[in-house]
């Protein structure tokens, strides 16, 4: 856990100490898209793609700052190693390409938790997320979920840990009535799809647990081998939202996940952002 700086009261507030916890955000009278991310490029924001790896040098992706892979060894222990294989299936590259397109100057990192077979993928996913949270990334994109209840509690703890460490977890929701995680947790930004063609159009959903809808239909995605292809799915709506988070955070790096979610709400197309 990160320690609070010694001069900040973390657990209670003495009389007259209100100014010691003054908030470093200069909130405008009305939060507009222009205030939130006008002119932003994602510069300085570290985005981790927790997925199948990223194909290095793909024209849609550009530079990847770092890449690790999580593997299970023969004794069922999980190792983290530098990833030299890139992307085994293309899913992570597709997500990275969308983030890069909308937040061109963000720093992309890859944590590969998919691709080494389905068996044992739950513990690998948990290890990858734990690592990513400990690295203090600003945004973690999770275009995946697990249905295994045995992992729900640990995922929940990690999601809350990320939330309080100022790491935003953006996760794909399910569009089927199944129990899956971590998108259902309220400390996560969960994303479903809308059918609009504009990549910056997003909606707040007043009927959770899916909290936001982003572009997820007919998306041109990066495809292994340097090309592109048309695809549809919440997997690709999620990195749109991750990129928008990166834009906001590059302009307002002091925002906490709680504050960021409020900014997303206030700038959603069906709230104040459509104007």
């Amino acid at each position, binding site marked *: 856990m990160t320690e609070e700086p010694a001069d900040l009261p973390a657990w209670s507030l003495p009389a007259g100490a209100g100014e010691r916890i003054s908030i470093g955000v200069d909130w405008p009278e009305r939060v507009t898209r222009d205030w939130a991310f006008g002119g932003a490029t994602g510069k300085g924001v570290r985005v981790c793609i927790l997925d199948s790896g990223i194909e290095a040098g793909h024209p849609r992706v550009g530079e990847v700052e770092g890449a690790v892979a999580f593997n299970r060894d023969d004794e069922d222990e999980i190792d983290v190693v530098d990833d030299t294989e890139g992307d085994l*299936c293309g899913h992570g590259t597709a997500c990275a390409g969308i983030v890069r397109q909308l937040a061109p100057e963000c720093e992309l990192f890859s944590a590969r938790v998919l691709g080494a077979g*389905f068996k044992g993928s739950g513990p690998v996913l948990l290890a990858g997320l734990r690592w990513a949270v400990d690295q203090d990334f600003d945004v973690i994109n999770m*275009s995946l*979920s*697990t*249905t*295994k209840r045995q992992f729900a509690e640990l995922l929940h703890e990690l999601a809350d840990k990320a939330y309080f460490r100022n790491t935003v977890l953006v996760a*794909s929701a399910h569009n089927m009535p199944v129990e899956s995680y971590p998108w259902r947790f309220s400390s996560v930004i969960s994303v479903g799809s809308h059918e609009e063609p504009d990549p910056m159009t997003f909606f707040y959903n007043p009927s959770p647990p899916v909290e936001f809808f982003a572009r997820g239909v007919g998306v041109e995605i990066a495809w292994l081998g340097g090309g592109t*292809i048309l695809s549809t*799915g919440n997997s690709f709506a999620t990195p749109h939202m991750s990129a928008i988070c990166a834009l906001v955070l590059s302009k307002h790096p002091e925002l906490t996940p709680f504050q960021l979610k409020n900014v997303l709400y206030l700038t959603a197309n069906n709230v104040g952002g459509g104007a």
Partner: protein
Amino acid sequence: MSDLRAAVAAGALGSEEGYRELLQSIVEVARAIFGARASSVFLFDEESDELVFEAVSGEGAGDLIGQRFPSSTGIAGWVLVTRQPLVVEELDKDPRFAREAAESTGFVPKGLMAVPLLHEDRALGVLEVLDRPQKAAFSLAEMELLGLFANEAAIALDLLLKARTARAVLEGEGGEAAAFARFASRLDDADEEKREAALQLLDALGKLLRER
């Protein structure tokens, strides 16, 4: 004893064929509703960590059943490991995919929809619909419809797996469960007088086993 319960619950040997037919009928209907060129269900084989063609309608029907590939490769693999439904179009533009598809299944789809088959907290497999007619744009309503088929297919696949577990138990080494199953089957066939006698004998056997 849970295996024995599974064996009994699944209605034992004859049910497997019935569930296969149900699965086959689901891919037939899915293909018809979407007006697609083919539809298939893949079963996730946990032991070998592979996806197996379990039911196929349309292109490739007949030849593909039983073919296997690693569980995290191909678009079906993406869908299984991410648990996320996915639609991919313009696949024929990609020469690498086209070659691999042609080698493994004999035909190259232009596009496909794939959805994970989730039952309770398990991922049992993947349902795919290939080459629906090119309409203006793919819609989320189609994705939802596919999700409904997926629910049905997941239930059928779950029943099929239970029936297979039952068969494995009955045919398995040791033969204790098989002996019980044979007994149950003969008890079923017996007339009332014989059944009464057999049950009394079984009761006595139970008492004998309880005594030390």
